[in-house]
C-alpha cells in the first residue's frame, strides 16, 4: 500500500498525525511530511482511519 497526500488540499490540521504519528508528521514549518510512504500491512486500519478523518479528504491509498 502506498500513502498519497494531495498537498494542494492538505491544510495541516494534523488529524492524521493524531491517528498514525509513525506515518504522518506535521512539523514546525507548518507542513505535513509522510514518514512512511509504504507502511506495513499492519498499519492499514490506522491509515484507513486517517483517510476517513482527514477534514480535507487529502489522503488516499494506492495499492501495490
Amino acid at each position, binding site marked *: 500500500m502506498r500513502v498519497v497526500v494531495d498537498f494542494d488540499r492538505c*491544510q*495541516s490540521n*494534523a488529524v492524521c498525525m493524531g491517528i498514525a504519528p509513525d506515518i504522518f508528521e506535521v512539523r514546525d514549518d507548518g507542513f505535513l511530511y509522510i514518514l512512511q510512504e509504504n507502511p506495513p500491512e499492519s498499519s492499514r486500519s490506522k491509515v484507513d482511519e486517517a483517510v476517513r478523518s482527514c*477534514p480535507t479528504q487529502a489522503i488516499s491509498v494506492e495499492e501495490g
Partner: protein
Amino acid sequence: MVGASLAGARAAEALRREGFDGPITLIGAEPHLPYTRPPLSKQYLEGTWGRDRLELKAPAPGPGTGVDFRLGTRAVGLDVARRRVRVSGPDGAGEVGFDGLVVATGCHPRTFPGAGDLDGVFTLRTVDDCDRLKAALDGGPRVAVIGAGFIGSEVAGTCRKRGLDVTVIEALPVPLAGALGEGMGHVLAGVHRDHGTGLRLGVGVEGFVPGPRAGDRHRVAGVRLADESVVEADVVVVGVGVVPTTGWLDGSGLAVDNGLVCDAACFVRAEGGGPGPGFVVAAGDVARWHNPLFGEDMRVEHWTNAVEQAEAAARNLLRGPGRAEPFAPPTYFWSDQYDVKIQYVGRARPGDRMVLAEGSIDERRFVAVYVRGERVVAALALNRPARIVAWQQRVASRSSWNPDLD
C-alpha cells in the same frame, strides 16, 4: 439514518465496515448527496475551491452494498414503538420502517427577528446558502457580519481576502469569548483589526435598516445597533450560532434538551432522562451525550466529532446497549481565520485557568492550555499545528499541568 450529511454518511459507512449487510436508508432534507461544510466559510466562499472539493467520498449510493438515499425528503415525525419515521418528500408523505435508527439531523442557524424580511441578509449552513452569499459578494458590496463566532469570524476573513469592506458586530466585548475565553478573544480581535476589518464590540443589534428609496425598500442597507448608530452594509451575514434540529422529534418520547440527550454510548434517552429504546442512537451536531472523559453532558458542533461519534454510535447500534462502549474522545476542532490557524482539543469551562505553555502571543504562534485544579482539560494552538497532537494526548490521558513539560 435521518440526516444525510457528515454524521449520517459516516455512520452508514461504519455500519458496512462493521459487517452489516442489511438495507440502509439515508433520509436527507437537502437535495444534495452528503458534502462537507467547513470550506463554505473558507476556500469555497473565497472561490479558490470548486464544488467538487466539497463531495464526501463515501458511501456509494445504489442497490446491493449501496445505500438508498432519500434526498429532498424531510423526516417529520418518529413513532418509536412501531419503529417508523414519517417523511415528507418529492413523493408526498410516507413512512420508512427501521430496526435501528441513527439520528444525525445536525443544527440549523439561529436567526434574528426581521432577518427574513429583507434581501441581502444571509445565514450560512448549506451549500445553497453559500452559493447565494457568494453571488451577492461578487457585486463588491460592503459587508456586515453579525456575531464574531467561528463562522462569523471566518466569513469576515474570507471577505477581506476577497478585498471587501467588512465590519464585524459582536455583543460580547471580544470575539469568541464564550468558546475560547476572554484572553484569546483579545488576540483574535487584534487579528481582525490587523487585516482591516472594522469591529463593533460589546454592542447589541437593534434591527435592520431597509434601503432609503422606494425601489430598494426590500433590500438591506445597514444594521442598527443598540447605541442607535448604523453600520452601513449591502450584505449582512448573520452568524449568531446554531440550534440543534430536533423539532421533528416532538412527541416521540425521546429526551430533547439542547440537542438529543444520549448516554455515554450515544443511545438516546427517554423523555425524563431514563433509558431509551436501545435501538436509537444519535451523532454529530445534534447529539448531547455524556462524555466520561470530562464527566459532563456535552454537545460538540465540529467536524471531527461528527466523524468520530458517527462511527462510535454505528458500532454501538450493532452491538446493542449491553455490549456498547462509551464514547470518550478528547474532542478536537480547528478554525482558519485570515492567516491564523486555531486548533483546539478538550473542553474548558469559565473559571478554568489559562496558561501560556509554548511560544509567544505577540508573534501569534503559541499553545495555551486550560487547567482545572491540576488537570489539563484543554489546549489551544494558534499557528502551531505541529504541537497539537502532543497536547491532545495529554488531555486524553488526564495529565496534570507541569510547566516543565515540553
